[in-house]
Each structure stands twice: as C-alpha cells, then as structure tokens.
C-alpha cells in the first residue's frame, strides 16, 4: 500500500493542526511513540474472525512486527480488544464486563461484519447489531472475515490514533465532557 493511501482519512492529523506546546508536545510524542508500538491485544474471539486473528498472530502475517504480539488472556493487562466475531445477546454483558475490566487507556477494534453491524446475522433474534451499541469502537475493519492485511491496516490506523492523543496540558479524548477543564472557561 502506498503511503498516501494509508493516510487517506486525514482528519486524525488535523487534530494537531494548531500546533502543540514545545516541551509537553514532545513529551506526548515520546510517550505515544512508546504506547503505539506496544499495543497488547486481548485474546478474545467468538467465531470465524478469531481464526483470522490467530492467522495474523502466526508466522506469515506476524503482527509482532508492529508490537501487537503480546496477546493477553486477561483483560487487566490488555490495551486493545479486537472484537473478532458475532456478539449475541448472551455474550453482550460479558463483552461489556471485559471492556470495563480493561485498564485505561483502552481501545476497541470491531473486526468483521458481525461486530460492525450484525453482518450476515443482522436479522437474527439473538444477535447484537453492532458492538458500538455496547462499547465505544475506535476502528472498524470490514470483511467477512477481513483479510489479515485488512486487520493489520486497521491496527495501524489505531496506532495513528494513539499517536495524536495528548497526555499533558489538554484533555485526553477519552475523557467525558463534564471532566473537561476547557469547558469551564
């Protein structure tokens, strides 16, 4: 993939168009460089997409190249949850709890049609129509199941997203509005 295509959704870098403070900005960059290159996913899969997720973890596609290789079985140690597969009514509270158990800052990737909208099972009586109704999603990776390259692309988009986050001075985008000090001015 060409670099121009990779940056086709421009809005992320625009968050920083106004420039940043020299010292704090550099500190942010340093921290984000580290964070974005060690995103640990949770070993979480419900169906077919999970097999492709495993394939990305295996030797050929090898997401260790980007720092994602440490899949954690415990949500307490994970940074990102890749929702790989259909989420059904019975699973919804479990997914919510898993997300709540993860430590901040945390990210969600919705992998595959089922996680995005219910996919081929949209009309079923027992399927949640998109995980964004339960937990906030950062990156959507379409496909049924997505190719490993697509998942890698999605994870790299997440890296971009992490890189523009700010820790010092201004609010973190994850913070609720009521806690935003800018609003009080």
């Amino acid at each position, binding site marked *: 993939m060409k670099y121009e295509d990779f940056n086709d959704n421009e809005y992320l870098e625009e968050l920083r168009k106004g420039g940043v403070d020299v010292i704090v900005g550099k500190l942010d960059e340093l921290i984000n460089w580290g964070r974005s290159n060690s995103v640990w996913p949770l070993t979480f899969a419900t*169906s077919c997409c999970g*097999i492709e997720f495993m394939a990305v973890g*295996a030797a*050929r596609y090898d997401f260790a190249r980007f720092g994602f290789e440490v899949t954690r079985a415990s949500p307490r140690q994970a940074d990102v949850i890749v929702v790989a597969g259909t989420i059904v009514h*019975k699973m919804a509270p*479990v997914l919510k709890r898993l997300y709540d158990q993860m430590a901040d800052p945390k990210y969600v990737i919705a992998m595959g049609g089922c996680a995005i909208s219910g996919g081929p*099972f949209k009309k079923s*009586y027992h399927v949640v129509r998109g995980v964004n109704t339960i937990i906030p999603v950062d990156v959507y990776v379409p496909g049924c199941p997505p190719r490993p390259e697509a998942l890698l692309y999605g994870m790299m988009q997440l890296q971009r997203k992490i890189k523009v986050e700010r820790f010092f001075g201004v609010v973190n985008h994850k913070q609720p509005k009521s806690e935003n000090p800018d609003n009080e001015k």
Partner: protein
Amino acid sequence: MEKIKNRILEVVPEAVVVSEAPLTVSVPPLPFYDLARRLRDDEDMRFDYLVCMTGVDEGESLGVVYHLRSTVYGHELVLRTAALDRENPELASVVDIWATANLNEREVFDFFGIRFINHPDMRRLFLRNDWVGYPLRKDYNADEKINPVRLESEETIDVAPAYEASRDGEVEEIEHVLFKEGEYVVNIGPQHPATHGVLRFRVQLDGEIVRKVDVNCGYIHRGIEKMCESLTYPQMLALTDRLDYLSAHQNRHALCLCIEDALQIEVPERVKYIRTIMDELTRLQSHLLFWSTFCMDLGALTAFFYGFRDREKILDMFEETCGGRLIMNYNVVGGVMQDIHPNLVHRIKDFIKYLPPMLKEYHEVFTGNIIAQQRMKGIGLLSREDAISYGVTGPSGRASGWACDVRKIHPYGVYDKVDFKEIVREDGDVFGRYMVRMEEILQSLHILEQLVDNIPEGDFAVKTKPIIRLPEGNYFRSVEASRGEFGVYIESRGDKFPYRVKFRSPGLPLVSVVDLLARDGKIADLIAVGGSLDYVVPDIDR
C-alpha cells in the same frame, strides 16, 4: 426394512407409516418411550445411535423428529412424534436410552418449549434463562422490546427445574440440584483461551480433582436455523460456511447434497471431483489447526507457528480458486461457483510432497515428547458404547473404536472411487484422538493424490432454475465434516423457503461428553480433553 416396519406396527398398532424410503413412522406420544426402548434393545433392530433430533412446529402440535441409525446393521429409521397440547407441551424423555438426547432435548425445550418428562435438567441450553418466548415456534414474537439486549449477566442457577411423572401419570415439577451449597465451583469461560471460543464450563473441584463439569452454551448462538426459514435455498448456503468455519466446504457440501437430492439433480462428474478435493483440503487445514491449537493448549507454543505456516499453503489454494481464505462460498446448488484455478493441480501436487516431512517433524517435536505423552496417554477415556450413545462421531469417535466415517458408510462425491483407510484406534484417550487426526492427514493426502490428476473435463455446474422450490417432503443428508458427522435436515412444504432446517452439528455431542471424560481427572486434564475433542463453538451453538 419391511421387518422393522412390521415390528413397530406390532408394538404400536396406531403408528402411521409416513413414507417408505427412508422409513418414516409417526408414533403417538404415549407409547413412544416404550417403542424407543424396544428399538434400541431388540436384537434384530438395535438402533443404538440417535443421529439427529429435531423439533418442528406443526401448527396445532409441536413435533419432534428422531433420526436413528443402527451401528450393528446400518439400517436407518425416522421416528416422528408430537406433543399435542401447544400450551403445555410434554413428551417423554429418551435420555436414558440415548445419552445424546440430553443436550438435544434441552435444545428442543429452548426452541419450542416442549418439556421432557424425566429429563434430569430442563434448563434452557442456548438462550438466557430470562428469555421470553420460544424462538423457533412459528408464532414467536421477535419484537426487540420483549427481548432487548441486556447488559447485565443472567443469574447462574445452581438448581435446575426438572419434570417427573408419578405412577398415575401426574406430572410434577421437581428440583434438580446441580451444585450443592458449600461445593467449590470454579467458572471457566466464556472468555478463556483454552475453551476454543466462547464456551463456559462450571467446574466443581475437590482439590485439583474435577468432580463435575456443567457446560453452558449459547454465547455465540446466532439463531441460524430460524434465519434459514426466511431465506431462499441459495441464500441459506452462505450461513452453513459460518457454522463450523473450519469445515466450511463440507458443511456447504451437505446442504447442496440435500437440496440436490430433493430436486433430483445429478451433478457432473467434474463437480464431484472438485468437491471431494475441496473437502479433503478443508479437512487437512482443520487438522493442521487442531494440531497447532491443541499443542498450544498443552504448552507447546512453537507448534502453533509450525501448524499455521503449513495451513497457509492450503488457504492460498482456496483463495486462488474460490476467492476466500476461510469462508469460501464455493459450492452452489448443482455444482460449484466457478471452475478451478489452473494453478490448483500443481499446487496440490507440491503440497502432497511438502507435508509428509513436516509431519515427521511435528511428531519429532511434539508426539515423541515425554511430557506430551504423559499428558495425553490414558487421559479422558471414552468407551465405544459411550461414544455411540452420546453420538460422538468423527476422529473422536473413531479413536474409541467406532467406525463411523460417513465417507465409508454412505459414500458421496467420489469417495466410493478412491482408496483410503478409515483410521480406527482402540485406545479412546486423548492420545488416541490426537493420533487419529494425525493419521487422517496422511489419508487425506492419499485421497488427493488419487484425485488430482484425474479431474474429468466437463461443466463445473448444471443450470438450475432461478427460483428453487423443493418438493414437499423431508430430506436428510450428512457428510463427514472435519470433526464428525454433519447432517442437514430440511422440511419443505413446497415453498421457496424451507419450513424447518436443522443442522446436525458434530460439536454438540462432543461438548456433551466433556463432563464424562474430565470427571475425576485433574483440572489440567480438562484442558487436554477439551483440546483433543476439538470442538468449534459456533458449530455447537449454531
């Protein structure tokens, strides 16, 4: 068959013979239990294997269809019975005759609300305990407001309801205690890397000895069977791939065969060859994945990388010919989607040469390892009788000495033309199940070797009507999927939509024996047992 028919009519004079081939008999609910017992026990009938159990909404009554097969004589029988009272449907349980009925009856209860008398545990199997309504009934109200997405977990119950008939026929509700007060119960799953998906075990422990395993399913129940009732036949095909995604071709093959049988379409010889080749490639990639994940469960992480490396070679072939890596969508009614890619033949030939040395390496790094051997040998013993009674087919059943390969019993595709050995072992333990799969890899390569050069010329599909309507009737076909017998039961009323579709998943019986195999073993062996059964959770839950 005539003899069996007469015997049934002798035992139950009011039984009605619905069709002759396959022999289908409709039996009233009252004498059903005694007939079922006779069918299994009588020397000349011996229907010891309950293949498939299906609930059907028949309008005024709620029916159940039992597909029976004898492992001694090989003959088959379809029994139908019905609970006449729709408001308060009750039927006699056959759990003590066929152990596989345990989870199947719970499934029927879940979908249709039929209560089985003398079943020990009448909880819902897939849906939440607080679910309103029975989804596969035709009058089910699918309003989102009645069953919204709830974000609090259901309460796990330790006391299950059960129904018992007293001597004068009165049915009373009793309580079946799953776990007593003070017993030490550990929850494993649904989020656990060793359950191979979202399966949940509740394990009662005594120190590190497992005393009881209670399986909770339904965390990936997508209601595929209900969805199929509102899809046309070609549309249904897409969903079969997603049942057991590691046997995608085989599942779809079963449904195609079932529809082709009903329409009496004869597919070209070329199609049969292509389908058989694809089935075997699917089996190979599934068994390679089994090896990777099973070894990983036992702590051998290197195996994961080796297995996936070799599996990718098969996925490449799929991608070239079918367009998809995992979900191929290749079989269609009357043939396959498109012709095979010119590269396929030589890729398969390369692969046949490539894999055997790799297998040797697999055995060197893992099978011969003393730690692996000690964790596998003598663990999780499954006897032949239990395998049949629970309906554990596929490599797991064959490891217990039950020759249950559908490719041999009812050859489809071109399995009658190729020479291959049905791997049957007598050990019945984890090691046996592991070795059956490893040896089946070689047999699959052997089948491919015979087919790959002899694919006949011809069409890759026959033309079918744009709108497919199945003639009225009941159809059942099964194939040998990667983990056992995968069956499709279609009940058609002559419409372009099926009236009822049931998938006989090989996974449900596999998970029903976990309790039996893991009981009184160490908790670490539970992981080995689960890994060796190699169930796929979306296939169990459907």
